[in-house]
């Protein structure tokens, strides 16, 4: 009989090992799924994890894409992880990302065709504020009326999507676009373009911001009283009150921070890789970042690596559907498996498995 036994202390080893175990299990079960779909599982796994970085044919295009995709994921996940640590479940980063993009793009387009170096910083500010404001809505409702932030933030994603469709075909529509929905291409306007800092690496300003956010979050959580208060709130709310933590303040701080970072991510995306506001501009970064945050153990350095890994499965997944004809739904399933196996193997952190000789209870 197999029995789970609680450990006296959470296991240090398994805290680090479970993400790797989860990746391996995802590869095995994903491979079986690919085989069932009629593809060679080994080739599929290689296409997803190896080819984007090292294949002669694709690497030149794929490698910079790694940072382009990882940047927003990391930036959003860092913000979310603060809230998750405090037990505040912001599921609506996708909406905050959209609003950040709309506000950032709106700011840039408002100045068109003026050229100035000040415009881009103003766009960053507008994006950050937009995301912040969108995330503050669930914070106000939660602290004032006790609503559930999971529901409110998630619902606001759909509101944001509707808003996006509206501005893409209305307010921000390109006047020279011959009636097609979508804004001017910000990436082609020098003052509003989020350019690569080092040519050919995919390293744009958003990626730089993501790296700064990682360092900032690390210092906040490990050295600053505010980070300690965030952890206290999540681990033992009563003890947090005893320590003098104001729960309302933590809710505003965590949701506000997550919204700010998600909004900035949206702004960097719309002014760089995406280029313009379109009806379907958002591509699920806000939701995938939830997986990234947990895959990275809500730890800033972990999130950095998890973001890179997740970006790899994105790029590799596209490559696999292109080269091997694997349906994109199967790729999403593959990514979802990663979170599933991570949460499943997490049980080893607090429990150990005991095999007991079969005595019937």
């Amino acid at each position: 009989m197999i029995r789970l036994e609680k450990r006296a202390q959470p296991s240090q080893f398994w805290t680090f090992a479970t993400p790797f175990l989860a990746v391996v299990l995802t590869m095995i079960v994903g491979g079986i799924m690919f085989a069932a779909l009629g593809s060679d599982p080994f080739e599929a796994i290689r296409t997803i994890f190896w080819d984007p970085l090292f294949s002669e044919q694709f690497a030149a295009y794929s490698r910079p894409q790694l940072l382009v995709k990882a940047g927003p994921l990391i930036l959003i996940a860092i913000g979310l992880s603060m809230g998750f640590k405090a037990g505040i479940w912001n599921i609506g980063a996708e909406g905050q990302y959209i609003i950040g993009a709309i506000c950032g793009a709106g700011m840039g387009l408002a100045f068109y065709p003026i050229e100035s170096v000040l415009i881009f910083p103003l766009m960053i500010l507008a994006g950050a504020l937009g995301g912040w404001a969108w995330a503050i809505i669930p914070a106000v409702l939660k602290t004032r009326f006790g609503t559930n932030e999971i529901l409110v933030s998630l619902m606001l994603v759909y509101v944001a999507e509707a808003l996006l469709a509206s501005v893409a075909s209305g307010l921000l529509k390109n006047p020279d676009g011959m009636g097609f929905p979508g804004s001017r291409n910000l990436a082609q306007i020098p003052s509003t373009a989020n350019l690569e800092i080092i040519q050919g690496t995919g390293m744009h300003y958003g990626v730089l911001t993501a790296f700064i956010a990682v360092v900032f979050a690390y210092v906040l959580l490990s050295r600053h009283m505010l980070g300690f208060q965030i952890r206290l709130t999540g681990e033992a709310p009563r003890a947090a009150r005893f320590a003098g933590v104001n729960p309302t303040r933590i809710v505003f701080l965590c949701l506000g921070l997550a919204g700010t970072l998600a909004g900035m991510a949206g702004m960097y995306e719309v002014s760089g890789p995406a280029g313009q506001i379109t009806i379907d501009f958002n591509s699920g970064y806000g939701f995938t970042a939830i997986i990234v945050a947990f895959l990275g153990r809500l730890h800033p350095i972990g999130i950095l690596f998890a973001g890179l890994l997740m970006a790899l499965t994105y790029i590799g997944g596209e490559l696999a559907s292109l080269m091997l004809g694997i349906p994109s739904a199967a790729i999403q399933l593959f990514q979802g498996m990663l979170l599933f196996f991570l949460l499943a193997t997490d049980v080893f952190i607090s429990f150990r498995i005991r095999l007991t000789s079969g005595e019937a209870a």
Partner: protein
Amino acid sequence: MSDPLLRLSGLTKAYPGVVANSDVSFDIHAGEVHALLGENGAGKSTLVKMIYGLVKPDTGRMTLNSAPFAPSAPSAARLSGVAMVFQHFSLFDALNVAENIALGMENAPKQRDLAAKIKEVSNQYGLPLDPYMRVGDLSAGERQRVEIIRCLLQNPKLLIMDEPTSVLTPQEVEILFKTLRQLKAEGTAILYISHKLEEIRSLCDTATILRLGQKVATCTPADTSAKELAEMMVGETLHVPERATGAFGDVILDVKDLSLRAPTEFGTALKNVTFKVRAREILGIGGVAGNGQDELLGALSGEVSSNNTVSLRGSDISKLGPQQRRALGVLAAPEERLGHAAVPDMSLSENALLSAAVRKDMMRFGFVNWGKAKLYAEHVINEFDVRTPGAGNAARSLSGGNLQKFVIGREVLQYPDVLIVNQPTWGVDASAAAAIRQSLMDLAEKGAALVVISQDLDELMEISDHFAALNEGRLSSIRPVQGLNVEEIGLMMGGVHDSMEGAA
């Protein structure tokens, strides 16, 4: 003597790292009240769990009425006539008495029949209880009655009671003892677990004493002095705390007309609580659990703010939060160790930071000085003899007693002007409890004003200068401890007091 009802022979149970019971043997006869006596961690609970079928012994045998007895689950034990009243009740607040009792029965009869049966049994044993009352509205003593009646409905041959009096007023204890004596006269055996020596001496026919998992002795408590029993239980001569009583200083903490609404549906509202504590004074606040103790601590520590009610040396602090009050010298140690006074999954260093950040200067511009936090945690560990491998260990890896020493030490070593503690020695073994009490008295000696909230009356009588009791959120009048007798204390705890002259 006749054959025993239950015979335990050579029961042994080991857990990883500890032997909870080693070769324990004794007999329980029908119509006998048998005490099981021992400190926390002596192995009483494990032994009882084996009898009740919750734990399987590693070796050893039990016989019930001369037939082999090895219950695989509590339901099997109940079928054989063994019933148990736990220390922590397993009742649902939102359900009524009859519904709660039905939940614990194998094949519950219809509500109406059950209610009639409950009435009948409760009257028969002098434990009045309304089957249609909601359990959330009952006092702790009444909740215990629900548990007892649940057991009695099964006509048990052996009734196990785990620390039944810890939640009762002296008067309620008397009622309970009457019931137990009646059961005994009817031939029911009772296994009575306690560490209250006087109770055991007045109630029990036989006592088995456990220490570190082993049986030390079986004796007749009426013929053994309380001191002898205690020494058998502890295994060493007890150090009784001492204190030199001097004159009190100025009023430091002044609470006037403190009224607060109940924080939750099952919480207690505070009603016009009024008292003063002077320098070098210990005010003991007694009362049965759930009468506003938590709420009072919260209002004094700053977790809950109030309006112009709490003042420190004449200046109002009732709007200040916990950290601001700490800066002014008002510290507190809540009852619930895990989750309130300390965070289970955080290290002792982090838990030191939790309440000592301000007074022990562990912050610079909001940045934490982890070196100082660790040093302070180690200081507490050394001074209060906390048994742990080091300050890096998680709070939940400590035993209850050791964590309690850490929690109390963390506050005492900050040398506060006012310290409020709730249940300072709950679940702590006798020698550690004596050390904690001594540290509280020493702190008062140095000029601090202390408020000690406790359900342990002996403790309050031992260390406090003045005594008051909380009953349904109201504080009784405050009386000097000297000259108080048990009768008066019981009445104060029961809420029968010369009502509103608490400010005296």
